[in-house]
């Protein structure tokens, strides 16, 4: 294993120091990342968080039009309640705070504990669970939260920026999640710095289908195939769960180790699949946004837009990881 780190134990801290040095728009304190300018009176505060290793998610999405604070945990480990409590108090502008939580047992438990313990701040929370690879049943922890997290953060962030009340921001956040589906495919395992070796072994002629974002193995293995075939597998899984029609926001997301060039190849296939179903790619995003360290592979996330959501997507955003309109 070769990694650009000082020590595995200081990785998160060192990376946050780098973020602070690179982005004067951020302020970082006690492993929480804030907008430098602090909370705005009357605006709903948005707090998200989760394990590190998914950069730019979440810390890279702190800024105008998106999050007010992000709580990064250790690599692939949910943050602890202290961070979340601290962040929630700090970003409250008197209008309450929305917790954006990916549906993992760890994230859910730590955010729940924090929400119980934080006092004097009205807290609502939205659970993101967009991954169609996992059956949502009594026999699983429910669908994972993956790529749609970015959509929720962006659109809820835009709405909060406009001054909408907490209940409305929470409602729209939930709506974005409900209208979103994801599916991920890995070509290689990632290597966590503490483990020091790949989480799983994957032969050269196989891929993992239905991966999450913690470098965990997927639901099944399949033979390695062309970009066209792999894109079709992901899109069929999504389309089977939520038939594609109308205007779509489509993200082809890299897992961290896949060249942008290849993500564009996948996007071309995804776009032609969408067209083939009579739907329309009306907004898109191609790049490394919700990653799993150095894993090679991609995920597709689709959100069915309406006019209101399109407007929220298009609204100005100014964060290290996503920026337009300012």
């Amino acid at each position, binding site marked *: 294993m070769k990694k650009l780190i000082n020590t595995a134990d200081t990785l998160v801290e060192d990376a946050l120091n780098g973020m602070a040095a690179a982005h004067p728009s951020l302020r970082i304190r006690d492993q929480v990342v804030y907008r430098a300018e602090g909370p705005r009176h009357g605006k709903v505060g948005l707090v998200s968080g989760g*394990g590190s290793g998914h950069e730019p998610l979440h810390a890279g999405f702190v800024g105008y039009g998106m999050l007010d604070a992000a709580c990064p*945990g*250790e*690599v*692939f*480990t*949910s*943050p*602890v*309640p*202290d961070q979340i409590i601290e962040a929630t108090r700090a970003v409250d502008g008197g209008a309450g705070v929305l917790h954006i939580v990916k549906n*993992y*047992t*760890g994230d859910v*438990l*730590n955010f729940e*504990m924090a929400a119980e313990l934080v006092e004097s701040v009205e807290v609502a929370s939205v659970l993101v669970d967009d991954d169609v*690879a*996992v*059956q949502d049943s*009594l*026999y*699983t*922890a429910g669908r*994972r939260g993956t790529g749609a997290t970015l959509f929720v953060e962006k659109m809820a962030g835009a709405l909060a920026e406009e001054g909408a009340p907490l209940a409305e921001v929470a409602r729209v956040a939930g709506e974005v999640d409900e209208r979103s589906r994801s599916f991920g495919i890995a070509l290689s395992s990632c290597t*966590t710095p*503490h*483990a020091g070796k790949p*989480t*799983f072994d994957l032969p050269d002629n196989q891929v993992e289908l239905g991966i*999450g974002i*913690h*470098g*965990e*193995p997927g*639901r*099944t293995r399949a033979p390695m195939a062309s970009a066209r075939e792999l894109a079709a597998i992901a899109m069929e899984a999504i389309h089977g769960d939520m038939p594609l029609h109308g205007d779509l926001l489509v993200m082809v997301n890299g897992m961290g180790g896949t060249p942008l060039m290849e993500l564009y190849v996948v996007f071309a296939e995804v776009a032609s699949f969408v067209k083939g179903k009579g739907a329309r790619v009306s907004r898109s995003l191609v790049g490394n946004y919700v990653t799993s360290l150095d894993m090679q592979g991609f995920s597709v996330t689709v959100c069915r837009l309406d006019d209101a959501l399109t407007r929220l997507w298009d609204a100005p955003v100014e964060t290290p990881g996503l920026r337009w309109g300012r």
Partner: protein
Amino acid sequence: MDTMDTGFFVAWFEEAARLVRRDRDRLTELDAAIGDADHGTNLDRGLTEVTKALAEWPPSSPVQVLSSAGATLIRRVGGASGPLYGSVFRQMSKALDTPVTLAGFAAAFDQGVVALQRLGKAALGDKTMVDALTPASRALALAVRDGVGAREAFEQAARAAAEGAKATIPLQARKGRASYLGERSVGHEDPGAASAALFMAALATAAA
């Protein structure tokens, strides 16, 4: 050993920290197979903090040891296992009567396991730490009923936990990250059950 004093509880967590440090890579490898390869690191980080806190602010009662350990695990581990283990010990601290008899310990421990299940909603057989902690709790209850001594009781609990952990191997996970794997989770020991067995082994050693 008729009653368990503060030193006993401190020894318990120190030994647990030692065992988890020793088996850190094994726990992480178990988690790599059906999870995200962080369980050993998570728990090692947490228990290192627990022993540090116990050394810095020496507790004056068993209840303090448990509440300090519970709070530290919640505040330092993160992930699923942090709040879950933290709740076990926090609830135990609330339910514990002093002086601590074996019967009192067993009852409080059972309350801890109940709190864990309330929080995590995992049932026996879901392939989680519950599968090691529930048999351990049952073993303690039986030992109390049968009037077995503490040392022997803790050894029986440790054995039950170890067997419970091994028995997770053929199961399909229904809770936590491993549940995402569906049938592929079969054939692997649950990392949280394995670490729970270490907690119970530490208990037996502390009593020895």
